[in-house]
């Protein structure tokens, strides 16, 4: 597809030899040292897992390899030759491609325009849109996600957008492919497909760097493990020689056993009562995302909602929080029906959502870390009508410490935080409103194992004080260990209610999988083909 990409190496013969190397790389952002002398190797035809806590410097290292950032000191070599990439385009021209941790799509362009952005198929001065569509469809096909390539990227759900990013990386035909948390919004089945694609790539000599906080994925997929802590490489080993416990110990310096605090709450009276809630799919009008869901959430209880992608979890949670319209049904908090209220008055009543997409819905990019955290709770800091800076700073500092945000200061711009730390800010922001019912959608997206444990400890602490927590996740481990009751969703309905103490991994996945009929993953909205082309 690309005109200038280096050919894929006939790598099988040279498997394991070093393709790309970072030597003594450091990177400083002002006073923050993101990398402090890193030596890192990428081997031909192998998957290298780069593991580390939030803010360890993983993304920074990868951005340097991919030409997005330049190292403060140190050298990058490709095939033994020093290279100095000044832009991602140069890196791609040398066969180095990256899937970024945060989504980077233009919502106003179609899928195929996004995939071929800046690498358009040009024929006689004009873009060959038809050829691009065909090629885009082929890449989506390879990822087993048969979306219409003319759909606008902005109309896709998060997981689909992530697949488009992956398709774009595939189209770059790279020999070194860096994946920075490519699966954070993907379902189990989609991850399986991605793994097949990755194995196919490595068998053809492509080298992969894989970053994920899903350590089981790394164990399953990678040939080598490299652990980064505080900007330094602290451990390296062939994956075959290590296990989960080793990785976690290297990463956080504590044993895995401590990670999840055991859950045992005795639920009080009903706090939130949800009855027959029906919600339309915001992406495709006429399709129902949630079809008649009812449940009770008790004071002091933590409910985990598990389900595959498209099961309706996000739509249900967003409807509870007032972001999606509830077509029929009631949501009673303390006997007050909130189903017709707006978001602000639901927050006032004590119900707040930590949204799935922190970039788009959770953070104000122009504000500082502290201001982002305080934004929902400003009312609490009013003293005689004015915002008290002192009260605000005190509350932000306290909550920031509680959720363990790693930041240079609370005045730093939110964009300077690592992905996982931004997520902690979003959670801190919700906690600051002192909610009675805390609703979290994929709260651990992009969060390292240590911080995950912290978050669930926080959740448990919330429940102990008589509040209630409802969270949705696609991670089996989280529902099994971090809640009192599991609701399994499929096709917009609750298909099972399970007790985590008597359920195991296989049972849970079986319930979710078998209940999910082959849903139409292609959400063609009628506006989808509204491109910028004019008739």
């Amino acid at each position, binding site marked *: 597809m690309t005109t200038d990409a280096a050919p894929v190496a006939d790598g099988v013969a040279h498997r394991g030899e070093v393709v790309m190397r970072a030597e003594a790389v450091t990177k400083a952002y002002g006073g923050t040292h993101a990398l402090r002398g890193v030596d890192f190797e990428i081997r031909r035809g192998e998957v290298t897992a780069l593991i580390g806590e939030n803010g360890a410097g993983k993304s920074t290292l990868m951005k340097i390899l991919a030409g997005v950032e330049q190292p403060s000191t140190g050298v990058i070599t490709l095939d033994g030759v020093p290279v100095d990439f000044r832009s*991602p385009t140069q890196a791609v021209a040398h066969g180095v491609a990256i899937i970024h941790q945060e989504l980077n799509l*233009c919502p*106003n*362009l179609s899928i195929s325009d996004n995939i071929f952005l*800046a690498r358009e198929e040009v024929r006689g001065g004009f873009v060959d849109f038809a050829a691009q569509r065909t090629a885009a469809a082929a890449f989506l096909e390879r990822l087993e996600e048969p979306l219409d390539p003319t759909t606008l990227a902005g109309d896709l759900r998060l997981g689909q957008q992530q697949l488009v990013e992956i398709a774009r990386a595939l189209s770059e035909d790279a020999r070194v492919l860096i994946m920075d948390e490519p699966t954070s919004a993907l379902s189990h089945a989609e991850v399986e497909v991605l793994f097949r694609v990755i194995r196919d790539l490595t068998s053809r000599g492509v080298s992969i760097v894989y970053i994920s906080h899903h350590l089981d994925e790394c164990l399953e997929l990678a040939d080598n493990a490299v652990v980064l802590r505080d900007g330094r490489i602290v451990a390296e080993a062939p994956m075959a020689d290590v296990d989960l416990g080793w990785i976690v110990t290297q990463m956080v310096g504590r044993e895995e056993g401590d990670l999840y605090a055991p859950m045992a709450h005795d639920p009080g009276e009903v706090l939130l009562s949800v009855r027959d809630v*029906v919600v339309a799919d915001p992406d495709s*009008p006429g399709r129902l995302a949630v079809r008649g869901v009812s449940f009770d959430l008790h004071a002091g209880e933590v409910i985990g909602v598990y389900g595959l992608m498209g099961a309706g979890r996000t739509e249900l949670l967003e409807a509870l929080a007032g972001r999606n319209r509830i077509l029929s049904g009631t949501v009673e908090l303390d006997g007050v029906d909130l189903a017709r209220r707006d978001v602000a008055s639901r927050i006032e009543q004590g119900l707040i959502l930590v949204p799935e997409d922190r970039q788009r819905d959770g953070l104000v990019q122009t504000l500082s870390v502290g201001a982002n955290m305080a934004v929902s709770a400003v009312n609490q800091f009013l003293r005689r009508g004015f915002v008290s800076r002192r009260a605000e700073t005190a509350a932000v500092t306290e909550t920031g410490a509680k959720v363990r945000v790693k930041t240079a200061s609370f005045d730093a711009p939110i964009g300077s935080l690592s992905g996982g730390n931004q997520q902690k800010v979003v959670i801190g922001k919700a906690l600051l409103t002192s909610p009675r019912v805390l609703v979290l959608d994929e709260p651990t997206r992009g969060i390292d194992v240590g911080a995950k444990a912290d978050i669930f400890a926080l959740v448990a602490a919330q429940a102990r004080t008589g509040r209630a927590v409802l969270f949705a996740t696609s991670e089996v481990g989280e529902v099994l260990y971090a809640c009192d009751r599991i609701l399994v969703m499929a096709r917009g309905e609750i298909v099972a209610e399970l007790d985590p103490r008597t359920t195991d991994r296989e049972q849970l996945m079986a319930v979710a999988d078998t209940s999910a009929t082959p849903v139409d993953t292609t959400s063609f909205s009628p506006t989808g083909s509204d491109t*910028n082309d004019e008739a």
Partner: protein
Amino acid sequence: MTATKNGSAPVSATAQARSRLLGNRGVGEFLLDQRAFVALIVLVIIFALMTDAFLTPTNLITMTKHVAYNAILALGMLLVIITGGIDLSVGSIVGLSGIVAGVMLQGWDLSLFDTTAYPAVWVVVVISLAVGGLVGALNGWLITRFNVAPFIATLGTMYIARGAALLISNGSTFPRLQGDPELGNTGFSFLGVGRPLGIPTAIWIMVIFAIVIWVLATRTRFGRHLYATGGNERAAQLSGVLVKSVKMRVYIISGLCAGMAGLIIASELTSAAPQTGQSFELNAIAAVVIGGASLAGGRGTVKGALIGAFVIGFLSDGLVLVGVSSFWQTVIKGLVIVLAVILDQSQERLKKARAAAQAAQSVKRELADRQPVATA
């Protein structure tokens, strides 16, 4: 149970009837979608009913000629707005390029060489356009090199270009730009009053500019990068789009368009005044917005901008023709602009309302499907 069942039957029948209406695009939505065009038609109909003079071929041609330079400005502005920027300097560039042409046609005083030059008309045109492009390049440079917000950068150059026009002309008008056969610089009036094939040159120029910019925006690599820059600048940059070069180019194009408009006006009046083009930038922005572009960037079409220019132009000329006072003309123009933006918003709302209606209808259908099982 039975009562509900009986009750639900007629409901689902009406629901089906409604689905037939809304299943395809609703009429209201279609009209909203094409609102700029609808507005134009409505304007034409209203004015045609009010005065017989409106729908005559001569008047239509005259009005289109007036539309032409606004449309040319709007086309340049469109590209800028698609990238998420704004260009406030175009009105001043109109004045400046006219004055530059005026100076040269009246005799370019090259005191350094102790002569007065009378360049040929094509040289005059090229240099005046270049001056427009240069101011555009200055805009682009300020915006991309120093990260100045487009609004501020072009506000600054708006004053600078206007000041330059006043300085060059010393505040006075250059009359009689038709040239002198003896000096070989006649023919400038062709731009403003020429009529190849019976159609004014200005209209030809508008059509050519429109086609070129339409092709640029919809068929080329540059066009995709334009929309990408406006849609998500960071994503575009990380994908390898040279965002700065894209921005540089749109401001230069906008400057060139403004230079062209300045030439057309100077030629039409066969005189150049430094004040020409004041507040034209606002007309251009209005045209682009009426045409459905978003000031946030990433959205906008050539067709829309053209229709927007026609709406603005026909509105002013029509109001004059039917004898509305010039004060009311200003108020009405303002109302039309605000209305355009309100309609833009209600289009989104209508879409959502329709989605909800459809979903509600499918709940009812589903309940109707379920009940026979329950009662059986």
